[in-house]
């Protein structure tokens, strides 16, 4: 855009304009709907309430992780430790619940994961080690703590309320789906309507300018890792509840799934641009894709290839939009 269009536009009154819907937003929603429509036609089982709720339950754990990951990535960080925190939080929650009840158990699970997030954030901000390195180290260390605590053996979950979180229903709807929706609603509200949310975008968009706007960059960057850790803990508790057992190997590789959902949603890995609603859409697309391929009897080997292709295609689509809007920049 050049000065002249600016000048021309400035003559129009300065009024609030609803956020325009870009091709990328549309593209993602359309892709999701097209995917669902295709699967409805191709398979008799896809569009049944049973299957849809099933997909939702399968997606919920990664989606909760991806919500936390969105906070971190919006603030221009990256959290590779969330998969291990799922495992650690699961065994700690299950272990503590055996002796001290489910409230203490779940609290301990969430607490230990949030604490790990705090350690990540502090190491990044105070010792100034890059995000990637710190959370990669935590990926390893947290898995180790998980194995030490559990002795490498799964810990059974017997407490009813704990099981309810993972396997229960409210009416016909599985509880994990409800937890997932609550997490996304809360994340959306925080990012969009609170001062903290604004700071996350500002810090991710331009850390130095944020500091020059008297924003406490350090606090914001630490907070996003605490949020991500805590949500990873929640995901770990839900997963353990669903399987009625806390597997020390739970969550291996989930960090990549969560990053994939965020990226697929179109949130910029450089930070500052994107939204948690897009991440939900990204997680749903990945979930439906995997479910659809299962229904179509596609070999799991091919499924992984297809997932990779979809991620690249989706990001390419959002780039087309970007290129179009930038052509004509002066």
């Amino acid at each position, binding site marked *: *855009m050049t000065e*002249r269009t600016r000048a021309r536009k*400035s003559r129009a009154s300065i009024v609030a304009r609803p956020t325009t819907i870009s091709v990328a937003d549309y593209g993602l929603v359309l892709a999701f709907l097209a995917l669902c429509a295709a699967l409805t036609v191709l398979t008799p089982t896809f569009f049944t309430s049973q299957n849809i709720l099933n997909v939702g339950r399968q997606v919920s754990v990664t989606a909760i992780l991806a919500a936390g990951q969105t906070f971190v990535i919006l603030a221009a960080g990256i959290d590779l430790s969330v998969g291990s925190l799922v495992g650690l939080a699961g065994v700690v929650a299950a272990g503590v619940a055996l002796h001290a009840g489910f409230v203490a158990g779940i609290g301990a699970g969430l607490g230990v994961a949030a604490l790990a997030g705090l350690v990540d954030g502090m190491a990044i901000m105070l010792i100034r080690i890059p995000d990637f390195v710190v959370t990669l180290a935590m990926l390893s260390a947290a898995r180790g703590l998980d194995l030490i605590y559990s002795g490498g053996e799964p810990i059974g979950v017997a407490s009813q309320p704990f099981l309810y979180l993972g396997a229960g229903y409210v009416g016909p709807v599985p509880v994990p789906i409800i937890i997932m929706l609550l997490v996304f609603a809360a994340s959306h509200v925080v990012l969009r309507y609170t001062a903290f949310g604004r700071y996350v975008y500002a810090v991710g*968009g*331009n850390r130095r*300018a*944020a500091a020059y706007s008297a*924003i406490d960059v350090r606090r914001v960057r630490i907070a996003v890792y605490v949020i991500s850790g805590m949500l990873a803990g929640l995901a770990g508790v839900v997963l353990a509840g669903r399987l009625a057992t806390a597997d020390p190997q739970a969550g291996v590789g989930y960090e990549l799934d969560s990053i994939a959902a965020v990226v697929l949603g179109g949130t910029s890995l450089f930070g*500052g641009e994107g939204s948690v609603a897009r991440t939900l859409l990204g997680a749903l697309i990945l979930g439906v894709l995997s479910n659809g391929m299962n229904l179509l009897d596609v070999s799991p080997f091919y499924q992984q290839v297809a997932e990779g292709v979809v991620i690249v295609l989706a990001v390419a689509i959002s780039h087309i939009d970007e290129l179009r809007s930038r052509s004509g920049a002066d």
Partner: protein
Amino acid sequence: MNATPLLSLRGISKTYPGVVALSGIDFDLQAGEVHGLVGENGAGKTTLLKIIGGAERADTGVIELQGRRVALASPREAQALGIRSIHQEFNLFPALTVAENICLDHLPTRVGLLDGRSVRAQAREAIGKLGVQLPLDTPVRQLNVADQQLVEIARALSAEARVLIMDEPTSALTEREIEALFAVVRSLRDHGVGVVFVSHRMEEVLELSDRVTVLRDGRLVGETSTHDRGEVIRMMVGRQLDDLYPKANVQIGPETLSVHGLTSAGRFTDVTFCLHRGEILGIAGVIGSGRTSIGKALFGMVPINRGTVAVDQRPVHIRSPRDALRVGIGYLPEDRKTLGLVLSLSVRHNETHVILPRISRFGWVDRGRERDIVTRRVQELRIRTPSLDAQALHLSGGNQQKLVLAKWLEIRPAALILDEPTRGVDVGAKAEIYQIMGDLVRGGVGIILISSDLPELLGLADRVVVLRDGRVVTTLDRPDATQERVLHMVTMGAAA
């Protein structure tokens, strides 16, 4: 005019989607001349330079180099024809050394490997032409902005150039470096190079150029060989700017900020001055004199080792921008794009970052109130934006700068520190920024103005603190602060 021009553009037009950036431009460059190109932001200078440099293609029109029609389809092609560009935004590789950056376009190799000795030799030669000192083996990212600019220039000089395009080459340089650069440009000119020169500093353009072409709104206004600044400005803006620096007649109030013996190790030493309400206090000094560090220190971005700061007679401790905010000190940083704004965010979000706590309840932003505040301020400062939710990225330089100012006006500052508030903004926006400053001092704000544009500094300031090597040389009252005197003081050796 002699026979065939070195470079000749005829009927150049360029349209971006929805906008005519250039329309029917004719432009000639003779061998051995410096041709100045002026115009307000958006007049089409950058687009024209990009077309000459091969970065953009014209929709219509003919380009001839020494009478031969050329296509200039890419920067590479233009470079092969001897057209070199020095850009406003650096095209340097931060991890590579100074020498490697300078020789990057034609790295000498020996049996396929980089020939380090030749690289350094070539780089030394190019730097030698500039008459400056640069560390050859230091990665460019460790250099300050001025040195990076010199590397960019040396890079263009390292290859044989027939046409040299210089887009704002001096914005980051000190007086001395500018002198050296001008000497190089003149010597290139005398060796038959044609130079297209663009700068926001009118004095420079007039001093250096043999003739000046004026663009306005993508059209050619005319060409002049005058050295009369007023006339060129008139051609640029299409109106007369009789007084470029309107000095507001303001009653100077009580002291609002007083700084005593302020020291920051390695940056500045024993700095003492005071600022009154309604006063504009100028800080003069070359780059590296500590002028920017002092501003940053008062805003909590640079540590203070010794000394005291008082706001409205009350001693304060400033350790972070939040401390500064609390006592009513605002700071407009020298680089609005990297420090002043989060370009990816909207006008509205950028404007309210510093007052979010005030307009939030339990962390919840009152968006209605926010919208009212921003709407009013955007209208008051005449920030031209398509909407409050438009990204700051899409605003022009002047409007971006007004947005940074707007952000700090929201805190009703006692003291406002402005570091290079008009760098890289066009004449019209400059006038608006001066007017805003005038309104502010009338409202009782004290302003510290840091500027390397000396006429501007002296034109606006009530008093001028002169800095050299991190120390205050003297403080001059307005009548005593003549350009010659201040220039002398900031650049001379120890004895003032």
